[in-house]
C-alpha cells in the first residue's frame, strides 16, 4: 500500500496533466486516481477539518453556494463548486484545497458514507421528493438510511432542515441535535403517509401531524415569513436575493442557519447570499443574438413546480430543453406529475433529445408546444428581449458547454 501522501501527489499530478493536455478541468481524474490508490481518501483528507454537508432532492447546489460564500466572508473554504457531488468530486475538492473548513454538496445516496468519513459537524437536509425513480426506485429507503445515519452521528453533529418536509424532519429528528427551519417549500405528494408509522398524515395550513403515532411538525426555530427571516428570538431580517423564486428564500434560510453553526452571523451570511447572481449557470441571464436568455433548471416534479410558480406571472416567451439521460431520468413519466396546466394556452418551444415527451405532455395540459431543433431554432422568430429557457439536468449541462455560456467566466 502506497503512503497516503504519495497517493495524493500522484492524484494531483494526474489532475494537472489532464488539465495540461486540455482534457477538461481534471476534476474527475484527480479524484479517480486518488480513490483507486487510497479508498479511504475522503476520511484522510477530512481529518481535522470542520466540514458541513448539504444534501437533498432540490436546492442543494444553491444552498451550498449560499453557505460557502457566507463562510468565506470569514475564513477560506474548500468546496466542490463544480457540482461533482459523489465520492470522486468530494475527494477532489478536499485534495485541491486544504482550507481547514469545507462545505460540500453531497448526492443524497452518498450522504451516509460521506458523513461517516468526514464526521461533519453540520448536515443540511434541504428536502426530499421523487427524483430519478428509474435509478433509485423511491424515497422511502433513502429516508430510512438518513435517519440511521443521523442516529449514529457523533454527539456534536447538528442537522438543519425544513420542518415543512415530514421526510427530512423524520430523518433529522434522530440527530444528536436538530435545528428546524420553516421554509416556503410546498411539495407534499411524497409525504402523504407518516414516515414513522405509515398512517395518513393530516395537514392544516403549515401544520402537519400523524394521527397514528403523534409524529408532528416541530415548532420552527427559524422561519421564513414573506421575504423575512425570523430568528429564534423573534428578530426579523430581510432576505434580499438576486436569485428569483420562492424556493431560494428557503435555501437561503437554511444556509444562514448553517453559517451560524460555523460562526458566521446572520447579517454577513445574508449579505453573501444577496450577492449570488447565478449558480453553475442557473438563473444567470446571457445575451444570445437579440434575446436575453435566462437559464433555469427543472429536474423533477418538485423543482418544476417551483419553476412554474415563478413563470406563471411572467409573460416571457418560454423554451424548454428536455433530455432523458441517466441524470435526467430515462423514464419521463414524471412529467405528468408536474402541474403544466398553469401554462394552458401559452406557446412553448421545445427542443432536446426527449422533446416529444415534453411536447405531448404540454399538449395534454392545454399548452401550445412547438418543436424546435436547437436553442437557436427555438429562439428564431421570438420577439427580441427576455426569454426563459427551462432545461433538464443534462440539457442544462449541454447548454453551459456551448456559447455564449461557455465563454462566460464561470465561478
Amino acid at each position, binding site marked *: 500500500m502506497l503512503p497516503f501522501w504519495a497517493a495524493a501527489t500522484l492524484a494531483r499530478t494526474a489532475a494537472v496533466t489532464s488539465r495540461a493536455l486540455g482534457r477538461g478541468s481534471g476534476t474527475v481524474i484527480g479524484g479517480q486516481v486518488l480513490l483507486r490508490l487510497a479508498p479511504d481518501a475522503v476520511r484522510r483528507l477530512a481529518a481535522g477539518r470542520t466540514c458541513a454537508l448539504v444534501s437533498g432532492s432540490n436546492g442543494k447546489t444553491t444552498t451550498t453556494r449560499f453557505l460557502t460564500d457566507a463562510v468565506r466572508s470569514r475564513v477560506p473554504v474548500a468546496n466542490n463548486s463544480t457540482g461533482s457531488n*459523489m*465520492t*470522486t468530486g468530494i475527494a477532489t475538492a478536499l485534495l485541491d484545497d486544504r482550507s481547514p473548513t469545507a462545505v460540500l454538496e453531497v448526492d443524497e*445516496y452518498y450522504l451516509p458514507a460521506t458523513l461517516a468519513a468526514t464526521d461533519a459537524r453540520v448536515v443540511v437536509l434541504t428536502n426530499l421528493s*421523487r427524483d430519478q*425513480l*428509474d*435509478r*433509485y*426506485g*423511491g*424515497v*422511502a429507503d433513502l429516508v430510512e438510511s438518513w435517519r440511521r445515519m443521523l442516529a449514529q452521528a457523533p454527539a456534536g453533529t447538528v442537522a438543519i432542515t425544513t420542518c415543512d418536509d415530514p421526510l427530512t424532519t423524520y430523518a433529522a429528528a434522530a440527530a444528536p441535535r436538530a435545528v428546524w427551519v420553516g421554509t416556503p417549500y410546498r411539495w407534499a*405528494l*411524497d409525504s*402523504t*403517509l407518516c414516515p414513522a408509522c*405509515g*398512517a*395518513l398524515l393530516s395537514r392544516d395550513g403549515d401544520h402537519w401531524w400523524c394521527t397514528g403515532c403523534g409524529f408532528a411538525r416541530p415548532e420552527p426555530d427559524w422561519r421564513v415569513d414573506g421575504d423575512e427571516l425570523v430568528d429564534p428570538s423573534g428578530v426579523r431580517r430581510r432576505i434580499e436575493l438576486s436569485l428569483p423564486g420562492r424556493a431560494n428564500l428557503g435555501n437561503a434560510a437554511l444556509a444562514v442557519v448553517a453559517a451560524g453553526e460555523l460562526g458566521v452571523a446572520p447579517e454577513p451570511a445574508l449579505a453573501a447570499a444577496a450577492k449570488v447572481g447565478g449558480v453553475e449557470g442557473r438563473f444567470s441571464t446571457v445575451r444570445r443574438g437579440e434575446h436575453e436568455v435566462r437559464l433555469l433548471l427543472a429536474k423533477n416534479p418538485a423543482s418544476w413546480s417551483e419553476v412554474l410558480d415563478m413563470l406563471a406571472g411572467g409573460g416571457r416567451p418560454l423554451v424548454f430543453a428536455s433530455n432523458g439521460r*441517466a*441524470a435526467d431520468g*430515462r*423514464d*419521463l*413519466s*414524471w*412529467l*405528468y*406529475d408536474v402541474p403544466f396546466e398553469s401554462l394552458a394556452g401559452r406557446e412553448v418551444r421545445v427542443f432536446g433529445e426527449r422533446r*416529444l*415527451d415534453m*411536447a*405531448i*405532455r404540454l*399538449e*395534454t*395540459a392545454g399548452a401550445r408546444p412547438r418543436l424546435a431543433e436547437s436553442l437557436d431554432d427555438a429562439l428564431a422568430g421570438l420577439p427580441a428581449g427576455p426569454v426563459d429557457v427551462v432545461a433538464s439536468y443534462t440539457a442544462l449541462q449541454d447548454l453551459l458547454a456551448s456559447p455564449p455560456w461557455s465563454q462566460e467566466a464561470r465561478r
Partner: protein
Amino acid sequence: MSGPSALRIIEVYPALLGTYGDHGNLLVLAQRARRHGVAVETVSVAPGQPLPRQGDVYLIGGAEDAAQVAATAMMRADGALADAVGRGAPLLAVCAGMQMLGREFPGPDGAPVAGLEVFDLVTSPGPWRAIGELVTDPAAELGLPVLTGFENHGGRTVLGPSAVPLGRVRVGFGNDDHGTEGVLAGHALGTYLHGPVLARNPALADLLLSWAAGPMAPLADPLVDQWRSERIAAAPESVRVHRKIAAERVSRSRPDAS
C-alpha cells in the same frame, strides 16, 4: 365538471398511488373523451375518502411499498372497487395497482400481504428491480396496436390458471421475464406499463372509453405516432442499459455513480 350524464372517471387515491406519473392516465383519458365529444367528470379521491360506487372508469396507479399496503387496506374497507369490477366497470391498474388487486404482494419488509383478489395473480419480491422500456403485443381480441411504456418494479408477478395476460413481451421484462405482461380480466386491465400507459397508447385509452360509452372513432395523433415509434425503437438499448446497471448493483448492492 359536467351534467349527470357525463362519463365519470375515478382516480383512486392519487396522493398514494401516483408515484410514477400515472396521474397522466386520468389527464389523457379525460382529454381524449372530450376530443371524442364525450362529456367527462373526473373525480380524484383522497386517501381515506369514500370511492364513488357509480364510476364509469376506475384508474389505479403505481406506488412505493408502504403506500401500496395502506391503499390496499383502505380499498378493502371501502368495498366500492370490488363492486365496480363485479358489475363490469372498466378498470386500469398499473404496477403496484395491479399487484394489490392480485392474491398477494410483498410489503415493505418483503413479507406477503393479502391482495384484493380481483386478478388471479401472485407477486413476490425479486432480487433486483426490472427497469426499462417495455414493448408488448397485446392480446389479439383487444384489436390494439403494439403497446409501449416504461416498467419499474421489484416484484415478480405470476399469473394464476384463470388469468389471461394483457400482452406478450416483445422487449423488456414484463410480469416475471417469462413472456407475459399484465393481466386481462373482462374489462379490468392490469399492467406494468408506465409512460403513462394511456399517453403512450391512445388506442388503449379509446378502448377503455368505448367499454364505458360506446364505440369511439379514430383520432389523428401524428405527434404521438412519432413518439411511439421513437420509444419503441429505443427499447432494446434501454433494456440493455438497465440490465447492466441491475447486474452491477447486485454485485455491489448499492446505488450507482453516474
